[in-house]
Structures are given as C-alpha cells and as structure tokens.
C-alpha cells in the first residue's frame, strides 16, 4: 500500500508542477470568462439607436406607432427617399397615399440592413396599426380598444410548471435543467477523454523509456497501474476544482461590476438587432445566475463527483491497457483506442437525447449500463425526476463495472508493458485475458 502511495505521489506531483498544467488550469477559466465578458461588452457597445422617418400623408399610422428604447419613429414632412440620411435618419418608411389593400406596397428604405429583428418590429407596428384601424372602422369604441391593447399578460395570470411524483411536488424549470444536464454531460465526456488519454500517454511513456521493467522489479504491475490511475484522478479533481472556483469567482466579479440596467439594455438591443446568438447567451449567463441557484445542486454536485470519478475509473484502466500494448507508432494507438472511444461517443449521442427527454426508455437504459451511465445519468439528474432506485442501480452497476474493467485491463497491462517492438492483435489480447497468472 505504501508503494502505491509513492506512485500516486509521483504521478500527481510531476503533473501538477508541469508548466502546461499550470497554464491550462489558469488560462482556461480566464479565456472562458474573458470570452463572455468580451461578447457582452461588444453587444453593449453596439447598442445603436435607430431613428426611422415615416412618410404617412394620410395619418393612418401616426397614432398607432409607438417608439421604444431602440427604435424611434418620427413623422417629419420635409423628409423623402433622397434626403433621409442627411436629415439624420437611419431608414425611411414610405406608405402610399391611398393605402388600402395588399396591392399597395409599403417599403422600408435604408442604406444598411437593419437586421431581421428590427424589420420584424417595424412590421409588428404596421400590423397593429392596420388591425386597430379595422377595429375602429367596424364601430369598436376607441376606449374599449385601448383597454384591450393595454392588457398586460403577466398581470392576469402566473404560469408555472410543476412536477408531481406521489406526494412530492417540485417546481420545474425544463430549460434550466436541460442546460445543467447537457453541461455536466459534456463536462464528463470531455474529462473522460482528457484524463483517460493522460493515463494512456503516461503508460506509453513508461513503456518507451523502458522504465517499466525497472519499476516492476520493485512494484507489482497492478500497483503501478493503480497508482498512475489514482494519481491522475487526483490531478483531474484538482484541475476541476480550480476551474470551478475561478469561473464562479471571476464571473461574479464581472457581473457585479456591470450594472443590471446596462445588461438589460444590451439584451433588448441584442434582441432587436438580431445579433449572433452567442452574444445573447453570454448576456443571459451573466444575468440569470439567480435562477441557476434554484437548481437541485444538493443532488447534482455529489452525483457529478461520483460519476466523474466512477466514469474515469471505468475507462482509465482500459486506456492504460491500450497504452501498454502500443509501440512507438502513434497511429497504432489511434486504432487500438477505437473500441474505447466508440462507447464514449455513443454515450454522448444518447446524452443529447437524455438531457431533453430524461424519462425516455433510451435515456433510462443508457443511464443504467455502466459504459454510458456516467455521461447519460448526469444529463438526467438535474431534471429532478429520476427515481432514487434508478440512481442506486446505476451507481452499483458502475462500481461493479469499473472493478471488472480494471481486473481485465490489468491482465493486458501486465503482459503488454514488457513486450517491446511487437504489434499486438486484439486476438492476442483476448488470450491474455483468459490466461491464468
């Protein structure tokens, strides 16, 4: 046991002291928050007020058009198609003199495109004006019309979705749980690859440097393999914790330093300008932290840690086995890795379904079978609708799964690590599995 501890310590310390590790651990959260801040900054900067000149000689629309924070409508009489730019308007809306039917075309003239959302807003205004005109022409009292138009939906009712399981009810927010589920699924998917590949490279390094034989003359191969796997797991947990602390810390500093009002302005502007989707995503990330706090974190965080470690242990020993049979040729590693990467990618595909439909049969089965459960179950858990017995079965099968894969992988590892310069086929590995020690 003492020796495994020495191996763990070496694996951990050499990696944590490595410059690339330190840089990537600090830079990734900086990039992440920096990217969000930059896109938020640019979308706030780019709030550009539009002033539209409307030529409405009959005055049909004048009373209905309402300016908002971003688009202002004015009805000057001395502006026409040729001079709206000089007069300081960004667009000119021309309504025919005798506007009456679909044959008469209304045109919005501008030098630069206003953007899809802005055009939609202008059309909404026109539609509302025409509808109002029709109501008035059919003898609807102006007062009644105004009061109907003035109804605010949010003052009339409050809409909420509730999940009911037996006696337990909980508020649900399907968008939020989808986001958290998808996010943690992707995070586990990525970490499986990052740290799994780190285990594989570590084993390959020991084999190619020929140090494996020196170490194995004082430590059992299984101890060496487990020491490496646990050491790298500790590196992974360290890195993950630093990332979480840095991202949460930095983003709260940033969102505290940007006023709420500014964000809202920017969001409205973004909506009306139809700018890139990631900008609005960045803004809502900074804006909706309160909502995020309502998610069942008490369940999510422990489960995340469990599935992160369990999934890693399930696959890491397989990566170690692959590393042990690879010789100098990196392409060989690629083809040998295929049987490991396939189930991980397949679980990712199941996960994309499971995040949206946590109770679909595919999601339920995917979250029980050990090879996909770490990724798929994490996508289901934030919905809050996973029965406890399913979580229990999934966890127990994952534990049994990684004990099994570790035992099988250790058999391949033990032989492979000392086999130099020979290409190993899957058939041969199969034979190693069933050979007694």
């Amino acid at each position: 046991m003492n020796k495994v501890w020495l191996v763990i310590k070496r694996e951990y310390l050499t990696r944590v002291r490595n410059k690339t590790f330190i840089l990537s651990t600090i830079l990734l959260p900086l990039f992440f928050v920096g990217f969000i801040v930059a896109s938020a900054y640019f979308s706030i900067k780019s709030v550009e007020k539009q002033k539209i000149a409307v030529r409405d000689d009959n005055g049909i629309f004048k009373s209905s058009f309402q300016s908002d924070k971003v688009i202002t409508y004015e009805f000057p009489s001395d502006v026409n198609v040729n001079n709206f730019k000089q007069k300081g308007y960004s667009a000119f809306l021309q309504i025919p003199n005798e506007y009456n039917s679909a044959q008469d075309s209304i045109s919005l003239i501008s030098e630069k495109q206003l953007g899809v959302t802005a055009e939609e807003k202008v059309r909404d205004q026109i539609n509302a004006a025409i509808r109002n005109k029709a109501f008035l022409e059919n003898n609807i009292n102006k007062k009644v019309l105004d009061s109907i138009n003035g109804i605010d939906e949010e003052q009339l009712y409050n809409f909420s979705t509730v999940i009911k399981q037996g006696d337990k009810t909980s508020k649900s927010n399907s968008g939020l749980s989808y986001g958290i589920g998808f996010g943690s699924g992707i995070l586990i998917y990525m970490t499986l690859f990052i740290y799994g590949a780190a285990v594989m490279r570590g084993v390959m390094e020991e084999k190619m440097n020929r140090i494996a034989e020196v170490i194995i003359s004082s430590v059992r191969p299984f101890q060496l393999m487990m020491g490496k796997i646990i050491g790298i797991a500790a590196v992974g947990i360290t890195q993950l914790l630093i990332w979480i602390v840095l991202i949460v810390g930095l983003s709260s500093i940033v969102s505290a330093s940007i006023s709420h009002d500014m964000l809202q302005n920017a969001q409205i502007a973004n909506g009306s300008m139809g700018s890139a989707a990631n900008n609005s995503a960045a803004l809502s990330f900074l804006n909706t932290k309160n909502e995020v706090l309502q998610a069942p974190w008490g369940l999510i965080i422990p489960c995340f840690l469990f599935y992160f470690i369990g999934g890693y242990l399930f696959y890491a020993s397989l990566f170690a086995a692959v590393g042990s049979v690879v010789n100098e040729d990196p392409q060989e590693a690629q083809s040998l890795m295929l049987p490991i990467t396939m189930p991980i990618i397949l679980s990712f595909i199941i996960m994309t379904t499971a995040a949206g439909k946590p109770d679909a049969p595919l999601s339920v089965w995917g979250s029980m079978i050990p090879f996909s459960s770490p990724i798929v179950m994490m996508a289901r858990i934030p919905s809050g609708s996973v029965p406890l017995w399913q979580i229990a079965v999934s966890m127990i099968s994952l534990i049994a799964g990684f004990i099994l894969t570790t035992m099988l992988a250790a058999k391949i590892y033990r032989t492979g690590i000392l086999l130099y310069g020979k290409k190993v086929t899957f058939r041969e590995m199969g034979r190693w599995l069933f050979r007694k020690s």
Partner: protein
Amino acid sequence: MDILELQNLKKYYATQKAVDDISFSIPQGSIFGLLGPNGAGKTTLLRMITGIFYPDSGHILFEGKKFDPAKDVLKIGYMPEERGLYKKMKIGEQALYLARLKGMSRTDAEKKIKDWFVKFEMQSWWNKKVDDLSKGMSQKLQFVITVLHEPRLLILDEPFSGLDPVNSSLIKDEIFKLAQKGITIIFSTHRMEQVEEICDKIVLVNKGKKILDGSVKQIKHDCKENIFKVGFEEIPQPFENNVFEIINSKDNFLTVKINTGYNPAAVLQQFLTHNASIISFNEILPSLNDIFIKKVEDTKASRQFEKVF
C-alpha cells in the same frame, strides 16, 4: 551456501519454449555469468528471478527459502538490458523515488544517493534531467540506482554497453568491491572477455536449455582439445609421425594438436628424437569465446518458431 537455487524452471510462450527445464544454483558472494546468444531465454530467466514473471513450473529458492517476490525483491537489484529512466524527471528526485520503491526511508535514501553521487563525481547532476545526460552518463546513473538499496543479489544485464574504458573500469571496480562485501552478482552478457576476467562461475543457455554449467577454469579444462604451442630456436624440418598434427606455424612457434591416445610427453619425445631445439612448451586452453561459439553452433543458433501447445 547458495543464495539462489533454480529447480526445473519452465516458462513457455505461445510460440516458444523460452525457458525449458533449467536448473542451477549460485553460491553466496560469487560473481556468476549467465551467458547465451540473443533470444536464448536469458531475459525471461532473469525476469523470473526478479519476480516480474511467474514460472509455469519449477521452483526458485532464495536464501534457502521459497522465493517470495513481494518480500524478496527488496533484496534484489536489477539493471535490465533495456535501460529505463524517466526522461523528464530530475535526476535526484528520480533516484530518490526508485530507492523508496525499494523500501528505503527518505533520509536513508537521500544519504546513500549523495554518497554514491560523490563517489562517481555526479554531485552536479541532482537537478538535471535525464534528457541532458549522455548515454554513458545515464548508464552510470542506472548502475547507482540499481545498487542504492544494498541488495543481497545484484543482477546486471550487459552493464558495460555504451561505457568508455574509463567508466567501464570504474564500474568494474565497484562490482569487485561489492562482491568482496559478500554481495552475489549475476552478470549477463555476450562479451566473453569480460566474463573470463570477472566471473567465477558460468552457465551457458541456448534455446531455453542449459548447455554448460561450472567454474570458468573447469569449463575451459573440460573443453580443451589437447592443443599445445611449442617454441623453437629454429623451426625443425617437417617429419612424419602419428602422435600429433601441426595446425599452425608462425615465427618460431608451432601449434600442434595431440592425437587421441598420446600425451604431451610423447610429443616432446618426437621433437627430441628429431633434434629440435625446444625453448617453450605450453598448453593452449580454448577461450570462452571459442567455447561459446562451438557450443552454440552445435545447437541451431537462431530459434525457430514452433508450436508449443
């Protein structure tokens, strides 16, 4: 007392009998040569002795008791033929790590490493990486790492490959010193002149089987072919006889092979009756190199793949 005794060891791979029923013993404190051509099964044999492989059948006795890898490997130092060190790790840390894996305490290991580094003039290496070392330097480091924990049995696989004559003799001296302290050394090589110089006892294996076993002196004696070198003031005229055959003639020397049934005295008698002026008469023992080549050629040198199961 024998420190190590192998009894009918067997290790078969899918296509080869790597070690096929080999038995021998190694006396405590001796320098023992394990010889054999490439692919003879030496490495497999050494890996079983170091507990890396388990034999398919047979027994290993270490210090008179059944070999227990978990405990006994701490008393063994193994320097494999394929040198291995972590390239990116600092040399001092690396030596410390490997010493502690052999069960040494931190302070003990640190002290021993410093002593050896002083002895081999390696003090300035502590914070360097293996990447910065030349092949000979890393060879020296590997030797130090192997002997750090003061093993009772030291196994060296080709310890001088890649070393210049100065460093070779430095390490050779250390090997003799260790042997004087009672440490048993197994020495695996194909360089026969080193074996003749260093080893007390040798075993020759080929194709997984033992073909020679004994002390260097004994083996040379057993393999002698009754060849003598005779020196003259002046080479005598050739003459007919059935006692010996001349196999070489150079300067004032004749090399002769005595025919079976005759002894060296008969040869001298023949020369004396022909009035030859003999000034020297020596027996030529075969070199280990010759014995090695002859014995290995008797069996087919390169292994053929065969079906074992």
